[in-house]
């Protein structure tokens, strides 16, 4: 269960204080597919960053399965992100100097979640499930944008997280690849019971979600 209570994110600019997220309350049940939609600059990415433990809220709390994640010490929060949350960013977020297998194995290696041989076997299995079984040794620059995004999904799943946060995961992909990537994400949600929170401004993608949260000017409007 994910709960947000009074979540605020304010930025101090030269023109004064700007509230990117302004007192949002939100509940997402475990295993649910929720879509956060809104126009560019509405605050949906800031909300996702706070939910994912990436950006400290100015106010409010984020509670994941009973843990108030922003009350954790910094290294505890890093360990929490590592074990409980998988990220799929809106940009190609693979490290260019590592092979696809290394990229996928990296979160598990960082969290020391098993012996390296076990971790690499898991990474190979996940890449195989994403249709990249024959590209384990390829570098990100050697595969297509769609394949890179699949590798990112595999990386997000390596530690079997409770929640996958996907921030505009298909914004730079063609229509066919977008459909394929969304199918992969939905499969993760349905087959593994992983909570999927998708941030998008594409209403068509949000239509399949069980819960739609519409954000405008930092607040939930629907």
């Amino acid at each position, binding site marked *: 269960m994910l709960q947000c209570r009074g979540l605020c994110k304010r930025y101090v600019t030269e023109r004064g204080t700007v509230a990117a997220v302004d007192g949002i309350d939100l509940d997402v049940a475990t295993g649910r597919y929720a879509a956060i939609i809104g126009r560019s600059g509405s605050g949906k990415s*800031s909300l996702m*960053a706070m939910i*994912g433990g*990436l*950006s*400290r809220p100015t106010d409010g709390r984020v509670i994941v399965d009973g843990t108030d994640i922003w009350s954790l010490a*910094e*290294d505890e929060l*890093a*360990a929490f*992100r*590592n*074990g409980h949350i998988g*990220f799929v*960013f809106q*940009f190609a*977020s693979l*490290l*260019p*100097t*590592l092979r696809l297998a*290394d990229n996928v*194995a*990296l*979160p598990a*290696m*960082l*969290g020391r979640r098993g012996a*390296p041989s076990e971790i690499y076997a898991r990474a190979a299995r996940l890449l195989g499930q994403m249709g990249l079984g024959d590209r384990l040794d390829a570098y990100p620059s050697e595969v297509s944008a769609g394949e890179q995004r699949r590798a990112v999904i595999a*990386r997000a799943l390596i*530690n079997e997280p409770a929640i996958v946060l996907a921030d505009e995961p298909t914004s730079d992909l063609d229509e066919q690849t977008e459909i394929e990537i969304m199918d992969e994400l939905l499969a993760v949600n349905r087959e593994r019971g992983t909570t999927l929170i998708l941030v998008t401004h594409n209403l068509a993608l949000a239509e399949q979600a069980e819960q739609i949260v519409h954000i405008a000017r930092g607040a939930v409007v629907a």
Partner: protein
Amino acid sequence: MRLLASLALQNLGRRKARSFLLVAAVAVASGVVFTGATLMRSIDRSMAVGFTRLGADLMVVPEGALTNITAALLVVEPTDLVLDRDAFAKARLAGIARAAPQKIVRVEHSGVGSHHESADLIGFDPALDFTIRPWLVEKLNRGMRPGDVILGAGRAAPLGSELLIFGKPHLVYGRLGRAGVGTHERGVFMSFDTLEALAPSVHGHGGGPPPVLQKGNVSGFLVELAPGATPLQARFAILSTLKGVKVVAGDSTLSGIRQGLEALLDGILALMVLMFASTALMVCVLFSAIVAERRGELGLLKAIGARRGQIVGMMVTEAVLATGFGGALGVVLGVLVMRLYERSLVHYLEKLGVPFLWLDLPRMAAAAVGAVVLACLIGALGALYPAWRASRRDPYDLVRGEG
């Protein structure tokens, strides 16, 4: 962690030109530190031997004593006049680095040399001496003991052989090199105790042992000036404190050269420290830029669970790998420079008869290891602050390219 270390290594390979420049800059700095440290220590050793061989800056003898002044070497001549052995220790004069007391007595029928030949027996304090032992060209492989004697270059006797002086057995401990000064060439050198033990056999002008062989008496002092002190200042200090003495100055050019060289070495040391600091600063600036350029990557690593220590560790490892390699390269360059130095200047100095003593191999190896460690330290210190700052940022700020 191996993956992070491999990531650090691959990051270096990603920007080859920049990594090459970083390695080159550190190589130059550590090459200078290694070469500078080695040469400084070598010059220091050579100076310690070479300049002390050239004798003292000043000689203090009783008023009325004879002295032998050569261009480079001050030597006390035998005399019946004496000074208090502790005169300098009691006076604690400013501008004096060291003062070595000596006793000298010229004897006949001692058994040293041919029957009628006179021999100079010279006593010195091994703990204070700086003018005799630098001339040792060979010696037994142990410290000097009572009963041991050192022979001047003009006297031939194998090391370890027995030499009878007034019928008493003495052991030849060492032999001095040629100095071109009679007393040094003909002399038989020994500790004060050994010389004083011969007193009953030596007859002075009054029939009894000469006063210089009594405990507490010496023929004179050989004096080395402290860095920065002038012979004139020291002479004034000595004459105003010690009564009944004469101060004899050696070649002031040599004192000037020694003091000048010491100042030069201090200057080189200061330059090396400055170079170290500026290279550390340069690495810090470079890594600030590298961290800024890789904010997205660091943010991503934090997002997927890298802890602060892992982020800092990765950046510091990257810097240490580059600067450590630069340090090792600098040592190789330094060795090449020193080979060149050896073939030119050192060869020339040795042709002139000026000794140049290289550091021994273990110390040179220690200097090499020190230079590489220092280079690694530069990298670690240079990268630490930017990495630490980046590790404090929220992952989202880093991913968005802020901070």
